[in-house]
Structure formats: C-alpha cells, structure tokens
C-alpha cells in the first residue's frame, strides 16, 4: 500500500489559553529554553516513499525508473489561442500621473513588451533554441520531472556532475546562456561540467496542454522537494553531485545538503540567506555596532533596518498571497497571458535592480532582452503552470511545514521562513548586490564550511543576467571544493 502525505492543513487549534497567559507559564529552566531557540531543531525523518502523483501508483514504481527523451513541441492550437488572447486584450489601465513602477507594473512599459510579443517574437525559432540541449522526462514518486541534461566529454578534463535548480518566477531557461560556459572547455580550467537542470515539480513540467500535471496531492514543498530530486541521481548512477542556484532552488538545495550530505560534493548558491534567531539578533546589534555584523561597504544593504523592513514589506505581497491562496490568484494568471507577463516582469525589474522601479522603462533592457524574458513567460504559459508554481509557496510556508522542524519561523515575520540547519558540505556563496542579503557574520552560522564568498554587481536572476561571470564563480568554487575533497580523502 502506498503512503499518502500527511495532511498539511493544521487542524483547528483547540480552545486553549490565550497568548499572554501561556507566556506567563513558569519555566523551570529559563536558561535552557532561551538556548534552545538558537539551536536548530532535530532533523525530521522524511519518507522517501510518498506518492505525489494522481491515482494509484504502478506496482514497480519504487524499483523501476522510467526515462523518456523528449523535445518541446507546442501544438499550434495553443499558439493560435495565445495570439487571439494577445490580439484581443482589453486596453490597459494607465498608470497614475507621474508614476513609474511605484504601484506595480507600469502599463506603458507592458504595452511595449506586449507589442514585441505580438509582432516580433517567434516561438518556432525559440522552440528550436530551447531544444538545443537534450531533454528527458523522468518519473519520480509519481511526478513527471522534465530535465535538461547536457553532458560533456573532453579529453583531459575532469567531468563534474552539477545539479542546477531554478526558482520562481524562473525556469531552466535562465541557465541556457550559462550552460555553454559549463560544458565547453574554458581556458585555464581543468574541470568541465555535466549539467542536470530539472524543472521543479509544479513549475513548468508538462509540455503538452492538458496532460495530467504532477502533484495531485498536497505537497511537495520546499522541504520534501529535495527528496524526489534525489532519485534520478541515485538511479543514474550519479552518487555525488554539486548543486547551484538561487531563489527556491537555493532553498531546496540547502535542504538536500542538510538531509543527504553524503550525496552532495559541494553547494553553490547565489542566494545564501540566513533568517535564524541569531542572525536576526546580529542584525539588531548591527544597528548600534555595525562592525559586528556587516562590512563597511555593505552597510547600506541592511541599514537602516527600518528601511530594510519597509522594503521587504513592499516587495513581499506576492509571497503572502501565493503562500495563502495560490489557487485563487492562479486562475487569473493561467487565464491571461498579459497578466502573467505583467506579474513576472515586475519581478525581473525589482529583483534585478530595485532602483529601476523609478524608471518608466523599468531598466529591463539593460540586463535582458524582451525575447529572453518572454521565453521564460511562454514556458509558464504554454504549460499553464502558474497555479502549481504558486503552490510551492503555500507548501513551504505553512504550519505543517514548520511543524516538520526543518523551517523555522523567523521572529516577527511568520510567513517568511528560511532553512535553519547548518550545511556541513563545502559551500560557496555568491552575493549579488541587489539580491537578498546575508551578512558575513550570519553566513558563518549556517554555512560553517564556507570555502568561497564573493560579491558581485548584479541582481536576483544572476545566472540569467550575467552567465559568464556566474560560470567563472562556479568554476572557482568547484576548484576549491575539489581541493577540499582531495585533502579530506581520509574522512570520506
């Protein structure tokens, strides 16, 4: 009998004491209680055998791995429907006088992008572009996982397998410019990568409309997600891999590194964030003694704290809504191509450089081409995966997930939790100027084995924006990881 995942919705809290009275409970060992706040909770025992798919599984689902090669081919009806929707969209609400992106997506800019999409964007060409790398469909725990797998064979180079995970609102498309740097020999390097880049479950995963989508059941969240992704590597005889990415990718990889350190040679992230109680206190302390927390040239990334919190509040509305009502907002996003375009593009503007909000053109063209941005939007649109992608937020930031102990509620910000267990495998953090920030002092808590910490100009979508720079950072990091393993052969 296969197991269903546990109910993720917390039952109604029993009628109990009020908040204040509970905190008045006499604590026999207050010192112990305070200390336990700073320690990560015990690791959960996760079930490798949860079935996430629709309907009952086949008998041999645990032993047999099905791999199908595939190419992206979008049926013409979908493209015709899209054209009709773009042609008949209602006139957009003009922005308020004198405003750029302060109230959200500026519709003057959006109109420009839509016009490009309607007239110049050519999906047939782009499909060829997307199919340039070999792709496969795997069946893991009931989920169809679509993976891009680019191998490389070069004499004289050591091949290192690397797992790249994207986040939201991204997709594997973000890595397309990065991959050649990783799979073709680079001057002065002795390693070369075998790239494995899956689409996250629920994120663009089905390339033909109306195929049963993955994730019939509640879950998978940022935690358990690590498990399904573990399987292909076991099966494909890749027992030890590297991982790299940011956004949800970083969160998932962090969990993998914590839960399955024996499989992870090294962990590279361009979104190392630390939201533990200790980090929070360090941030507070840093308002008075900045040198205890941040480097002088990073002072303005975190301080004044009030501005930092205001900024966070201003930019996390989407997170709050997606973490609580993904299915509601998903209806509109799956039904309106210009709607989902506006929703995503806003993130590419703000995430890449938050000062661009004050520019009517959003600064987009300085970092990306409209064509590349629309590739990413198309991937979400043709697969109709807005809702399922949003659900990742709900699954990650809900009470049951907190109950697992693997995420901790950051003080004050209930819905924004981050991993709280330290990663012991060799780690590298690439900090980009306009992305979420973690101070050096905070990083040391969660990443005790931090072998490389680099700072770069750039934003949240680092691999997309700066592929060559990102690749170099990866190579540097992996070289350090290789050194580390060479010197630690005895303990492995």
């Amino acid at each position, binding site marked *: 009998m296969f197991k269903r995942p546990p*109910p993720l*919705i917390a039952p109604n*809290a029993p009628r109990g004491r*009020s*908040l*204040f*009275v509970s905190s008045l409970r006499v604590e026999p060992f207050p010192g112990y209680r305070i200390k336990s706040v700073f320690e990560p909770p015990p690791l959960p025992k996760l079930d490798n055998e949860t079935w996430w798919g629709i309907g009952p599984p086949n008998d041999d689902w645990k032993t047999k791995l099905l791999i199908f090669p595939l190419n992206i081919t979008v049926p013409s009806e979908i493209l015709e*429907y899209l054209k009709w929707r773009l042609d*008949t*969209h*209602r*006139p957009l*609400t*003009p*922005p*308020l*006088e*004198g*405003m750029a992106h*302060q*109230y*959200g*997506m*500026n*519709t003057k800019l959006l109109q420009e992008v839509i016009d490009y999409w309607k007239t110049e964007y050519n999906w047939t060409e782009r499909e060829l572009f997307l199919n340039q790398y070999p792709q496969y469909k795997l069946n893991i725990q009931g989920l169809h996982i679509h993976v891009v797998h680019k191998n490389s064979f070069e004499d004289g180079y050591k091949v290192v397998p690397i797992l790249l995970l994207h986040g939201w609102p991204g997709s594997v498309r973000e890595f397309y410019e990065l991959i050649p740097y990783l799979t073709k020999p680079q001057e002065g390097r002795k390693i070369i990568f075998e790239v494995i880049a899956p689409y996250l479950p629920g994120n663009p995963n089905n390339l033909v*409309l*109306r195929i049963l*989508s993955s*994730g019939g*059941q*509640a879950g998978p969240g940022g935690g358990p997600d690590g498990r399904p992704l573990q399987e292909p590597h076991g099966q494909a005889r890749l027992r030890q891999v590297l991982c790299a990415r940011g956004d949800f990718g970083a969160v998932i990889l962090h969990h993998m590194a914590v839960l399955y350190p024996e499989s992870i040679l090294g962990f590279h992230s361009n979104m190392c964030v630390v939201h533990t109680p200790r980090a929070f206190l360090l941030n507070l302390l840093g308002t008075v003694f900045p040198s205890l927390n941040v480097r002088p040239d990073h002072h303005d990334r975190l301080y004044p704290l009030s501005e930092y919190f205001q900024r966070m*509040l201003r*930019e996390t*509305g*989407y997170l*709050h809504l*997606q*973490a*609580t*009502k993904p*299915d*509601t*907002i*998903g*209806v*509109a*996003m*799956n*039904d*309106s191509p*210009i*709607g989902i375009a*506006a*929703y995503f593009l806003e993130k590419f503007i703000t995430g890449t450089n938050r000062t661009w909000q004050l520019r009517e053109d959003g600064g987009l063209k300085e970092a990306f081409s409209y064509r590349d941005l629309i590739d990413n939007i198309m991937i979400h649109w043709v697969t*109709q995966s807005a*809702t*399922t992608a949003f*659900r990742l937020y*709900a699954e990650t930031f809900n009470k049951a997930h907190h109950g697992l102990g693997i995420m901790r509620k950051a003080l004050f910000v*209930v819905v924004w939790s981050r991993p709280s267990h330290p990663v012991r495998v060799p780690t590298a953090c690439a900090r980009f100027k306009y992305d979420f920030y973690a101070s050096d002092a905070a990083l040391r808590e969660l990443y005790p084995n931090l072998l490389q910490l680099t700072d770069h100009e750039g934003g949240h979508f680092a691999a997309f924006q700066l592929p060559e720079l990102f690749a170099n950072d990866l190579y540097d990091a992996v070289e350090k990881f290789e050194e580390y393993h060479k010197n630690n052969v005895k303990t492995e």
Partner: protein
Amino acid sequence: MGKGILIAVVVAALSAVTYLKLVRPILEVPPVPKLGDTWWGAGDPTKEDTKIHPFKINVSDEILKDLQQRLANALPFQEPLENAKQHYGINTKHLKNIVNFWRTKYNWREREKFLNQYPQFTVSVQGLKIHYLHIKPKETKGLKVLPLLILHGWPGSIREFYEMIPFLTTPQKGRNVVFEVIVPSLPGYGFSDAAVRPGLGAVEMAVVFKNFMSRIGYEKYYTQGGDWGSIIVQHMATLFPEKIKGTHSNMCFVNTPLANVKEFIGSIYPPLVIEKENELAAYPLSNKFYYLMLEMGYMHLQATKPDTVGVALRDSPVGLAAYLLEKFSTWTNPEWKSLDDGGLTKKISLTNLLDNVMIYWVTRSITTSMRLYSESFNIAQMNLKVDRIPIEVPSGCARFTKELAFPLEWVLKDKYKNLIHLTDLEGGHFAAFEEPKLLAEDIYVFAEKVENPKKTD
C-alpha cells in the same frame, strides 16, 4: 536613608521618561488635519460641470460579446489538490460550475433592468464623476425623513444594498422615521471615475464625499458603511462632525496603538473585556493573528502592487470571479473554507454574486479599485493620524460575529466617544448583502436613538 532617596529619584526619573516616551505618544490626540479640495480628475478645474445628470446602466453589446467569448474559451482550470476544499484558495472544481452558470444562465440584460430599478445620477466632484443611487421614500406621512449616505467597500459595490434599500425607504411597522438613501460608487469603483493622480486614499475620499453630499444638497445627514465604507464614514465623522447627524457601521474599526495594547491586556483574562458568547470571536490572540495572516495576502499585494495584479484581473473574467468570490465565501463564514463549494450560495444567490462581479468587469475597474489600498496604507496617509482622533458624533456599531475582526467595547469607546448603540448580530462581512432586513432594522434602531435621545438608558 540617602540610598532610599537615590532609589526614589531614579524610579521617578525612569517613570517620567517612560511616560514621556512610551505612554504619552500612545495616548496623545493629534489635531484634526485641514485638507484641501484636491482636483483628482483629468479635466480643467475651472470648467467643472456641477450639474446632476440622470444615469442608466447600459453596457454595450461589444463588451457582452467579448465576455461571452472569454468565458467560452477559458482554458481548463488547474485541478485542486486532494481534499484541498478552499484552503489553497478558491476550489476550481466549484469555479467551473460558477463559470458555466455565468456563461449559460446568467442574463445581463435582465440584471441591467434589475440594477436600473432605482433612480441613478452622476455628478462631478473635485474632477471625478461620481455615480450614485438616490432613492426617496414614496410614503412619508407621519414619518420623519432622514437622509442616509451608505458607502460600500472592496470587493463590494452598490449592488450589496439593493435588497436592503426597500426596508430603509418604505415605512416599517412601529417606526417613526424613514430614510432617503444615497448610495454612491467609490471613486475608482463601478461607474464612478477614478483619480488620475496619486493620493486618493480613504481620508481624501472622506473629503470627496463631504463635497459630494453638499453638491447634491445635503448639509446634515446620517452615514452608514462597511469595509472601506466604514473607514471612510469614520473619517467623515472625524473631519466634518458638523455634517454628520449620526454614523452607523457594521465594521467599526479602531486602529490606534492604545487599541492594540488594550486587546493584549484583555488577553490576560478575556471575560473582563468581552462577553462569554463572543470570546472566541476575539481571543485567543494567536488564533486571530494566524487567521489574519492567512487572509491578508490580497491586502498585502494590493497595498503594494495593485497595478501588477490588476492586469490579469482586468483581462480574465474567470480570474476576476475567482479572486472576488473567494472573499464572499471566506468572509461570510471562515468555517466555509472546509466546504467543497465554499458555502458560496448559502446566503447570497449566485446571480446576485455575479451582479457584483459584473460591475467590476464591465467597468474594468478592478485595478483602480485596488489602488485604494496602496493609497491608504502609506506613510503620507498614516501621518495624518486621523485614526487617533476620537469621534464625538452619535455612533452606532453592529458587530457581526463572523466579521474579520471583532472589536472590544472597551476599545470602541476610546474612538467612538458617543457610542449610543452597540449590537451583536449573527452574520459575516457583507452584512447588507447577507442580512438586509437585520442590518436595516439595526439602522432604524440606531437612528431612532439619535432622533429621540432618552435621558436615561
């Protein structure tokens, strides 16, 4: 001896500092701000047409045909997760039924006739064309006629009051008053114009409606509101008490530091501050906080990026329906989240609910309606500190038990200094829509208390 004096001095100094820094700011009452008449529209302020024009809703065939096409061609919805009910948002299995009904059985031209049953007008105020219903009672013999301004909220509209209006404008047994009802659409909602420049938050809307009432000939009147309506009528009572005979709300709302402190203190022993039968509506605070976090995602997004999410909602009728109807389910009764159909039609019929959605759709006003959140929840508006100024006009609060928040009487009395009427009623957030007769009765009782003040209670 010396030590005693030293300790006393230190304690006194600390108390003084605590009082000055912590306590006094919480208790201080700021002055009433003076607000000008900002020009919110696009036209020339010197050439404003101040005449009242009659109005009838008449949506073009083109808009209706476009809607039909979009409904017919909507792509299949993402299936809900197993047993999700309404916990991840609206359940799309049920949404499918709603869209079918909307496409095949809902008849807009009929509904237009229904909506046009009341006399409607438009008038320009501060550059904005304000659309409103104006119903005068036909039978007034022996009754005192009281003008009543009713304001709706989000995601509501004037539609919410259609069933309640007959109770207010026709003589009710045993009553000696009857109402002349004025129901406008808020700027940016429905058939009213939206502001073209930033700044039109709830406080500024109070100014607009004071001027609106003056323009159509009323200098002293009653006000009633729920949701944003209750906030705007609250501000009107604060800024222009001389205009308000009495203010009634089904969502009385106190937003001051002191209110929060009092709620927290009340949690020590709730029976001291709240009746036993209502205790669970307000306590435990942790439950309340968790519930608010769960339900306020839309508010967080609309208060920060209304224009972004508005694009999709203006372009997708099914998306708009999902977004709005989710509120009509959960805010009417939070327990309905555990129902497959969200209990949506238990109290309000699907036709009536869709009337409301249509008003947002045919006027394409969802984006401008959501801007009210970002215009109100910003530092400039909050610095006016209007929330902290108490109201002296006679006030009445109807506390509905399933409303999003249940204010304590202890807290209400700080803001509503002249609270002459407080009732607890069964029902949810959309009180007028759900319980038109109940709410109407409560308004009558309140108004009679104002008109016939008793010496002792």
